[in-house]
């Protein structure tokens, strides 16, 4: 029997199972878009047939990082910007776990930008949900990497001189094999996209637009969205990298003018995940590494038997 019997357990689950029976320390303000992410994630879990014990959720710091307090599964609330490296090692250690990483636009496009690029580049099989509210919320309203140029905050009182990062283009260029954007105010699309991202075999980047009613009242999160998959105007082949890049460029240019597109931008079903690439080079164990530590019959070879001849 597996040491991890929760993994792959076939049973019906419902979204309520993913609600902790512990009152979380309230940190999300009334009307916060993060509730929309939480709801969509809870709804997606039964859709993909997962139970709380087989899901490992890694979060960063800030309001988004508190997702773990509201979501019942194995959880690891890491440090600012570091949820991806912690998460991807857990996946390598036990590839059968459902690994989800969640962080804010500061975590993934700012302080942890390097990790974001490299996790996408390597195409680790996991979901990276980025709460994009164009602001640092929990530190009380400073300009974030996605804040529009000219954005005024206490730390950039004359308005930001920086152009915002383009998250979709960034992850596409870095090598993500699934890139989508959805929004807290669009719950039906959000849960579908998250379910799809979880089932995708590779790095799935979901840029999740969330509103911050406390610190970013003017942001575009309140404007209507167009779903690119529902719109006749945008008929692009999601497996075509070039087309995806063009449409991303277009929408990211217009984002701050209030024209917001959501939906799937790019899906590459063929690109092997990092774990598959690593298996191909012979540097990935066949069985989940973590299992070994629970197996009483596991053989722990001595270096004395294997390696010392070389030194004689």
């Amino acid at each position, binding site marked *: 029997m597996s040491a991890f019997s929760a993994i792959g357990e076939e049973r019906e689950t419902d979204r309520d199972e993913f609600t902790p029976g512990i009152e979380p320390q309230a940190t999300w303000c009334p009307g916060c878009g993060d509730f929309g992410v939480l709801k969509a994630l809870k709804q997606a879990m039964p859709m993909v047939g997962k139970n709380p014990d087989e899901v490992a959720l890694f979060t960063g710091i800030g309001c988004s990082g508190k997702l773990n307090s509201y979501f019942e599964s194995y959880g690891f609330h890491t440090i600012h910007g570091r949820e991806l490296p912690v998460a991807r090692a857990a996946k390598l250690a036990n590839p059968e776990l459902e690994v989800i990483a969640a962080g804010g636009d500061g975590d993934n496009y700012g302080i942890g930008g390097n990790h974001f690029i490299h996790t996408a580049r390597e195409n680790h099989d996991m979901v990276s949900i980025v709460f994009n509210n164009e602001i640092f919320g929990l530190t009380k309203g400073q300009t974030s990497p996605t804040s529009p140029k000219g954005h005024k905050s206490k730390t950039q009182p004359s308005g930001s001189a920086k152009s915002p990062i383009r998250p979709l283009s960034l992850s596409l260029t870095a090598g993500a094999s699934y890139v989508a954007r959805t929004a807290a105010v669009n719950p039906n699309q959000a849960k579908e996209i998250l379910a799809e991202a979880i089932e995708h075999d590779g790095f799935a980047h979901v840029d999740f637009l969330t509103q911050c009613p406390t610190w970013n009242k003017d942001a575009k999160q309140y404007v209507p969205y167009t779903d690119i998959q529902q719109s006749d105007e945008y008929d692009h082949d999601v497996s075509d990298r070039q087309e995806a890049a063009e449409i991303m460029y277009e929408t990211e240019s217009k984002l701050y003018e209030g024209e917001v597109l959501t939906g799937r931008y790019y899906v590459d079903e063929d690109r092997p995940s990092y774990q598959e690439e690593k298996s191909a080079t012979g*540097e990935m164990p066949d069985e989940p590494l973590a299992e070994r530590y629970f197996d009483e019959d596991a053989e722990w070879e001595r270096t004395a038997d294997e390696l010392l001849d070389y030194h004689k």
Partner: protein
Amino acid sequence: MTGQELIWRIAGGSGDGIDSTSQNFAKALMRSGLDVFTHRHYPSRIRGGHTFVEVRASNDDVRSRGDGYNFLLALGDSFARNPQEGAYYGNEEVKPLSENLHDLREGGVIVYDEGLLEEDDIADLNLEERAEENDWHVYPLNLREIAREHGREVMRNTAGVAATAALLGMDTSYFEELIQENMSGDVMEANLKVLDQAYDEVSEMDHDHDLTIPEAEAHDEDQVLLSGSNAIAYGALDEGCRFISGYPMTPWTDVFTIMSQNLPKFGGISEQVEDEIAAASLAIGASHAGVKAMSGSSGGGFALMSEPLGLAEMTETPVVLVEAMRAGPSTGMPTKPEQGDLEHVLYTSQGDSSRVVFAPGNLRECYDQTRKAFEIAYDYQIPAIVVYDQKLQGELRNVDEGFFDREPSGDPGSVLTEEEIAEAAHHESGKFQRFQHEPEDGSNVSPRSVPGQKDGRFLATGNEHNESGHISEDPQNRVFQMDRRLGKLDDIRTDLDENASHQTYHGPEDADHGILVWGSHQDTVFEAVDRLNENGHSVKALGVSDLMPYPVEEVSEWLESVDQALVVEMNATGQFRGLTQKEIGRFGPKLSSLLKYNGNPFEPHEIVEGFESSINGEELAANNMKYVPAAGD
């Protein structure tokens, strides 16, 4: 060490094969029945510059690089010449000869490659006159020509080794064997020819020196030649470590490379990642998921790990980090040893943080204490650091293979099985009580579960948290959790005291004076202590390898027993002396320091001189060291 010894120094430019040649030379000496020890000196530069390796050999226990050396093989720096333009960078090429002469002992032998060195440059060195003064025996040989005649220029290394053998009366069969083992085809054939030719030519020459290869006992076939890095890596493997993540940085790269090359054979995973923050974070992630994991770096890279180190402590995720010190601050001297990161390793990270720190004192301790670091980290759910330096990283030493003949272990420590989780405490919501205030067994360790186990769900967070892992700022909970986490250090101290003291005592128990040392200079100090006692002093030494938790009782007792103690360490500020005073809180007036921080490890005679001038109240004559008197002196 008693009796005759050879300290052979091969010098050349980086990239000229000095390192590999010296390794083979050392191995050949070991196979001929001698005890060997190597010391490596190289610049932070890929090709060219001044590089040397010393191989010290004797017929009994060799513990340090020794004092100076008695055979110089100066090969010249072939990279001082730019082959494209025929440019020649002044006397750079002659450095392997000119830069090494000051440490050559009286009566020593010099072989230099006249094929590569210009006569004019040699003339500038005043070699004849100096040879006369010091009774040096100089053999200019055209090693380059022999190499070119039978193979390629780079094989002048082989020619130099053959010349050494001919001059010292060594058997070349061990070199032949190694060439046959390590090379193949034309390259092997050519090297064998170069070896033969050079040996024959030099054998026929007239010799006027006394130095010979030390007499050897029969070779014990169970001897293996390896470095501190090998021992750390093998200790980790034997303790069931199957995951490593890192970013290259000298000298940490050594352990990282050895692990990366071997982990796939053992069914493990190695990850080279984007930076050191990621490296330590990956090790934490793998450990969280149930694997025994390790990461590490050197000073600057370890600085980046300060953040994940604190996370591991707060979330009680076991992890082992290796810190391979080099001279700092900042990037410092990348290829030179120093023991300057002690305080960095002990105290980095915010808050009242705690971790376990071991500083192995030699090759064997590298293995033992790495295993212990894993054991403690996983039993007590705390980060453990193995701190060593570029000296232990770079030196090769022979040891009996039987030393490594130990039981491997994959024990993940305080991880529960699903059956045990079912019996364990849960919150009414079904959440596993991962961080209990008062664990059932009365210890400070609350057992853990691993993602994927049924009903083991918990939240790990770097924020203060309650028993289920949820963020909490409740004052009472805070005190409970802090006390429990910090209490582990006391438990570990007790555990180490009872089961695995890592302190090493040397010299007569009733000696009047003491030398206190930590880390890589332990055996050099022990050699110096033997010499001091032979000189009529009454000295003993204590090598301290547990740095946190500090062995307060053991060191206190030892300090009680001596009149005064000289603390020997390779840094400028006496960090270990400071630690000892802080931890013990007394003995300040008994402790003085002998410090060296010029990038070169202590030689035993320097410790002898430092000690003698300290007890005689004389000023230190050597200007490459610093003496700091006791507080209040």
